[in-house]
């Protein structure tokens, strides 16, 4: 179900791991859904005085697609100006990987969102002007995160009930 490129990035992920002296970090996802990504960027000026992502790394908890898209997005953003990096979408990431299964598209959204959030944090911290589109995306993500938090809390509450005899979740799926 995965393309060779996905498998290749999954097996040999680029830019993976924590960064010590990062300029900003974007944290997206939620463990209820299984996908969590932390993306670190280090921003510096290039000879022309433009701000570029001079270093990037990430930590991801997720499936094959989530790990491959983390690797791919980090490759795509490395060395780019902030403006160029903001323009990276999940569709770009997926197509660079020669496509993802439809059910896995949300994993690629995660990677693009994490980049978005890292840049947003950087611009905010440095009191730069924030492009409207970036701001809107951040607000949408913040809202989604909040609703995921709610879901997580509900899940945890259910789990606590489950410590008695009740169980959590609907019946949907099992391997054979």
């Amino acid at each position, binding site marked *: 179900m995965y393309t060779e490129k996905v*498998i290749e990035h*999954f*097996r040999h*992920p680029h830019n*993976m*791991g924590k960064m010590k002296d990062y300029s900003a970090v974007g*944290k997206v996802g939620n*463990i*209820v*859904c*299984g*996908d*969590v*990504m*932390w993306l670190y960027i280090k921003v510096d000026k290039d000879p022309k005085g433009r701000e570029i992502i001079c270093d990037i790394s990430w*930590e*991801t*908890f*997720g*499936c*094959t697609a*989530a*790990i491959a898209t983390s690797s791919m997005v980090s490759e795509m953003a490395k060395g780019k100006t902030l403006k160029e990096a903001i323009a990276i979408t999940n569709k770009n990431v997926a197509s660079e990987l020669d496509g993802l299964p439809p*059910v896995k598209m949300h994993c690629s959204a995660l990677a693009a969102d994490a980049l978005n959030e890292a840049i947003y944090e950087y611009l905010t911290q440095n009191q730069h002007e924030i492009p409207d589109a970036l701001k809107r995306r951040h607000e949408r993500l913040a809202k989604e995160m909040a609703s995921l938090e709610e879901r997580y809390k509900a*899940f*945890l509450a259910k*789990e606590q009930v*489950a*410590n008695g*005899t*009740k*169980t*959590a*979740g*609907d*019946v*949907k*799926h*099992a*391997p*054979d």
Partner: protein
Amino acid sequence: MDKCIYLDNSATTPVAAEVLEAMTPYFCEAYGNASSLHASGREARQAIEKGRAEIAAILGVSPSEIVFTSGATEANNLAIIGMAFAHEEKRHIITSKIEHHAVLYPCQWLESQGYEVTTLDVDKTGRIDLEQLKDAIRKDTLLVSIMAGNNEIGTLQPVEEIGAICRERGVAFHTDAVQAYGKVQLSTDSIDLLSVSAHKLHGPKGVGFLMVRKGFSLTPLLHGGGHEGGRRSGTENTPGIVGLAASSSLAFNKMEETTARMRRFKRRLIEAIHAIPGTRLNGHETESLPHIVNVSFQGIEGESLVMKLDEHGIETSTGSACSSPTLEPSHVLLAISVPISMAHGSLRISTGRQTTREEIDAFLDVLPRVVEELRAISPFKVGE
């Protein structure tokens, strides 16, 4: 491919050479339709009835109590829907939260048709509570369907006790014995209906049977030529049935030796995995099938784990949300209250008759490294 270490035997198993050999003549030589009058037909009929007698003898029932089907999904549907339709006066069914979908979904479908279904909870090891079962039985309860051994976590249910309760209360008892058949001693004395599938025991895919105790009438799901005593129409799958019988006989003849080996592997697997930090065993420590081990690894996701192992030629499976089309974790893991974060990191390892000590060693050599690799990528650090 040929060198892969296959540890997904509760999904399916390789066909045993002896089974294939027994089946082979029934494709191109003895290909007759068992309903035909001529010699070829009689030969096929003979093979089918021999197989039926073999299976009946294993279970200690009479041959007429065995109905061949296309596998366990059909056998479960026939048991549940067939019973419900044949006994319109009783409209309540009891099952459990950790049944295979081939039991849960027919029950849910009956619910949508106006039947009532009680789905029993299980404890943290996956066992039902017999008191809860007794309380759930009502005057209009027709059937209790509880699996013998679970396909994900291996937990065994107290089948004999369940059967005794059902007998006493005059309720029919069906058990999905797909994983338990050939792996543990099963006394059929108090079981009224029992489902089996050949491909889980080194037989071919697409064939199985439902044991139906005498006196229990079923409305057939498939109507046609009136095969299988009118309970399941359709020209008999002669090679499949021969393969099913051969695989049953092999499994039961070799049961002691095979399961002793499987239990050794299981102990070794559990010990070695416990030595990796941030792990847990899902299921029951002792009341469990010998061939299934289900564990969880903190901080990593099951689909990536399965894919990493696959990279090393090791084939396993997971109940993680990311691996499922609905993106929800396995209903079995949720039912036994595995914390959601641990359900994400679940791994099922299941051995077969062909599994060797060398394969288990090779797997255990790779596993900690792969877990380490994925944990290095993860933002959730174990022990932090």
